[in-house]
């Protein structure tokens, strides 16, 4: 009997983002929208982190963001070849997270306008990143 083949991971961060077509408004970050206070919490969670309401719905978010700060790493890690940029970003919904930055390493600065993009990663997986513009 042949063991079933393990499928290659489809997404690098299945809990963090939706690829195109997965939900309305995708691609974008996975977030929970509160039907009571209207605010957003990162990821699919059972409770709104702003008001403790349990009336939350899973949505795509973070299509636009602002760069808070970044660093260029000169040592490879987690399958990323150095040098690469990692950013602390804040989305238009107020979600704050670390994310890979796609594009030139030159001219990155706090306040840069960013947009959500999906990018191919090792092993045929789809990853996410933020790009300027």
């Amino acid at each position: 009997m042949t063991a079933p083949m393990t499928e290659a991971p489809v997404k690098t961060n299945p809990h963090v983002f939706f690829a195109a077509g997965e939900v309305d408004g995708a691609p974008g970050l996975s977030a929970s929208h509160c039907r009571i206070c209207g605010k957003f919490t990162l990821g699919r969670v059972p409770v709104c982190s702003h008001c403790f309401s349990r009336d939350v719905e899973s949505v795509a978010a973070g299509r636009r963001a602002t760069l808070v700060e970044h660093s260029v790493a000169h040592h490879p890690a987690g399958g990323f070849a150095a040098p690469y940029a990692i950013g602390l970003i804040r989305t238009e919904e107020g979600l704050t997270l670390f994310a890979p930055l796609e594009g030139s390493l030159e001219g990155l600065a706090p306040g840069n306008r960013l947009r959500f993009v999906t990018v191919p990663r090792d092993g045929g997986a789809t990853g996410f990143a933020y790009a300027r513009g």
Partner: protein
Amino acid sequence: MSDAYVAGVGFHPFGRFPEKTLKEIAAQAVLAALDDSALDPDGIDAAFCANAYAGLLTGQESVRGETWLRSVGIGGVPIINVENACAGGGAALHLATIAVRSGTYRRVLVVGAEKMFTGDTGRAIAALATSSDIEVTGGIGMQFAAVDAIRVKQLMAEEKLGDDALEWVTVKNHDNGALNPIAQFRKPMTAQDVRNSRMIAEPLRLYMCSAISDGAAACVVSAEPSRRRVRIIGSGAACAPVRARQGEVSTARRAVKKAYDDAGVGPSDIGVVEVHDAVSPLELVYYRELGFCAPGEVGRFVAEERTLRTGPIPFNPSGGINSRGHPVGATGIAQVCELVLQLSGEAGARQIAPTRRGLALNAGGWIGEDPAFNAVHILEAA
């Protein structure tokens, strides 16, 4: 309620010891702490043991403390394993303090040990990266040097600091570490040496980053004072706030407030500080976070060199994590052991001027926008 004293301290030196097992490294620190406390293994009522990565790096995923302590003849008592990333040591001390103050146990052994050097730096860095919510930070090239670099850049912008401030604190702590017999790096360096070392994550250079270390530290927390009479007067801990609802008060500010309140003292009552400089410039963050200088004053604090070993408020007289080394489970305990030696005038060549109270902050992991856990201890010499 009983008082909690640190009766004795012990170390295994920090560095790279490929010929030794984690168990052997832990045992050496435990035996030194028992000797220093004038106790034999039967004198211990309970033990809290801190380690972060043995499961990933050696395969010993559980009952770590039981394996270490059996090798020195300790058995039959409660042995509790504590994991809180790089703050497991501080968390174990917090629990030991509570256990002794409650009157439940009279003499509690606290030991932190880590064996991170496997010959493969990449494995150790990958293990460190698990000290965050891996669902969120996996697959994004997350590494702690970059996270710390972003924190340092934010501080530099807020406090108008240049690279010279980052170099200064690195040189200061290596000067201290050069005098510490357990330190991994015992060689002073110049600002030029720091500036010439290779870039790791901008603006952090190699000599600003802690290395991969093996090592252990242990102490006995006791209801009775030893010959040193050093008492734990404050013990506070906090995890990362949920900023959406809990605002801008950081993990460190929460933990240190609890410790100050527990001790009934404030920053002006403290004479020596050990902080968690996983990269040396993070020490500058804590000048503000612990209340030693106001926002906007960090540059002046550095220019006046207030935190030199010979200055009015020495920070990291041990050399800090940056030069002492960072076997992560041991770090929080090593910080408190350093305070005990300094407060009792037994710190040898790195001894600071006499002072009564010291504070240690141990940080671990990353969750959301903050370190995942901080533990703060305040010690006082009679």
